[in-house]
């Protein structure tokens, strides 16, 4: 009874709450890091060094008036933020934060579930998230959101191809679709896949930037051209849902990149015995550290690089990343067959 219902439910509650708290603090981290990059201080007033800023933001967003435009399609307008938030959260069901641990005399796994099509589940759930953006633009019944949502969905669909192709080359290396199985494969081959698949890693990271609509690919939110992007007409908590979904997706991309290319919960160089003192840091800490590095790089890139033009974005996606990903996949396949 406890093993079937209580523990999974507890895990779900912990993971969802940790994610939402992490997301709100990601916003603060982003503002701070960008401020430092631009020789500013960032938020300083709410709490020491502004650490209570997310609380103030949340209260402000909840108290704001929730406006639905008169000409909007009301049902779709209400559903769109929900549709973009839910996929971003349910993906965490298969992400392995760590190995099994002993806690209170029980053997507990540090992942909610391990299904045999885990990676495919992540890709398919993420592909449903596009609807939130398309429908938000459509339902607002206003031209800038519509243009932004068309851009956003074209971008997502294009980059999804390249990202999925890199995932296939990782699957070829691991021989399994299970997220836990992929980490175990890296453990048994004594190598993080990031070292054997550097090209796939690079393409995944660039595609991940594009899929989360982050700079330098944040065309859907290009303020100069499109006012606020697809969520121009949204206010209050509904706007906040889009905002949170974007950050939740960033955490998802970081976690997936960590699991596939940086060995998940494994310590660095798991095959070097001289480094075994690193084992005193538990696996889930390694996972969080690696994911955090990714998130930091996301912000760093935003503070550094200017935005691409739309045609450049499409050229990179279709003419550079997809051919490279296909070539990488073919070479990986040949090498795998030759080695077996």
């Amino acid at each position, binding site marked *: 009874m406890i093993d079937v219902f209580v523990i999974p439910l507890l895990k779900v509650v912990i993971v969802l709450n940790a994610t939402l708290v992490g997301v709100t603090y990601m916003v603060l981290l982003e503002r701070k890091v960008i401020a430092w990059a631009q020789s500013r201080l960032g938020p300083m007033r709410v709490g020491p060094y502004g650490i209570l800023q997310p609380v103030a933001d949340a209260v402000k967003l909840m108290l704001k008036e929730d406006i639905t435009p008169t000409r909007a399609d009301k049902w779709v307008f209400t559903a769109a933020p929900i549709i973009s938030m839910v996929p971003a959260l349910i993906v965490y069901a298969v992400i392995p934060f760590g190995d099994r641990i002993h806690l209170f005399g029980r053997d507990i796994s540090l992942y909610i579930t391990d299904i045999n*099509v885990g990676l*495919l589940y992540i890709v398919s759930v993420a592909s449903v998230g596009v609807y939130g953006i398309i429908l938000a633009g459509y339902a607002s019944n206003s031209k800038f959101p519509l243009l932004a949502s068309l851009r956003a969905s074209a971008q997502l669909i294009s980059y999804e191809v390249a990202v999925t192709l890199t995932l296939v080359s990782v699957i070829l290396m691991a021989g399994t679709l299970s997220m836990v199985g992929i980490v175990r494969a890296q453990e048994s081959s004594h190598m993080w896949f990031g070292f054997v698949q550097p090209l796939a890693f690079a393409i995944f990271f660039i595609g991940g930037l594009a899929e989360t609509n982050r700079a330098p690919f944040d065309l859907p939110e290009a303020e100069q051209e499109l006012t606020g992007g697809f969520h121009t007409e949204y206010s209050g908590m509904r706007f906040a849902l889009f905002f949170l979904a974007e950050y939740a997706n960033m955490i998802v991309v970081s976690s997936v990149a960590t699991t596939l290319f940086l060995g998940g919960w494994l310590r660095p160089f798991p095959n070097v015995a001289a480094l075994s003192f690193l084992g005193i840091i538990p696996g889930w800490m390694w996972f969080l550290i690696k994911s955090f590095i990714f998130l930091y790089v996301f912000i760093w890139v935003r503070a550094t690089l200017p935005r691409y033009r739309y045609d450049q974005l499409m050229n990179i996606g279709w003419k550079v990343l997809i051919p490279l990903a296909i070539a990488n996949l073919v070479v990986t396949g040949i090498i795998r067959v030759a080695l077996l």
Partner: protein
Amino acid sequence: MAESIAFYTIAAFILGFAVLVVTTRDTVHSVLFLVVDFLFVAALYVLLGAQFLAAIQILVYAGGIVVLYLFVVMLVNLKRPPEEYRDPRRRSVLGFGLSAAVLAELGLIAFWSRLNPAPPLAASAAAALPVTGNTEQVGWLLYTSYLIPFEIASMLLLVAMIGAIVLAKREL
């Protein structure tokens, strides 16, 4: 028992949303109901123990193809309902005829399979396979027993792709 309750619930949702797809006036709403319908079909696959197929169903149909439908529906403005067909009765006669034909076909299939019950193919085939796991079994069967249908399907897709390129790009 629990399985049949789950099956009939999911089947009821699939049929209900399918009815909504064809009866809704607003085309975008209709496409959305289609997505929900596909999600429930994926749930049916999970119930049958075909997790791979369920994930592919969501990835390809709900996440890929219907997004393109939505693009077309949004770009072709269908706010105004299309004009009435000149003779609505002729169309409904045709519709009823086709529905009756499909119903008769389904009845015939049900009757035939009751007379000649098929051997439990899935279980025996799965037991004979050298691999375990849902994805591995699907892959194994596709590249051994069903290789030729698989290749024919991929040829069909390739032809469709070339056709689309030729139609879209007049000067090559």
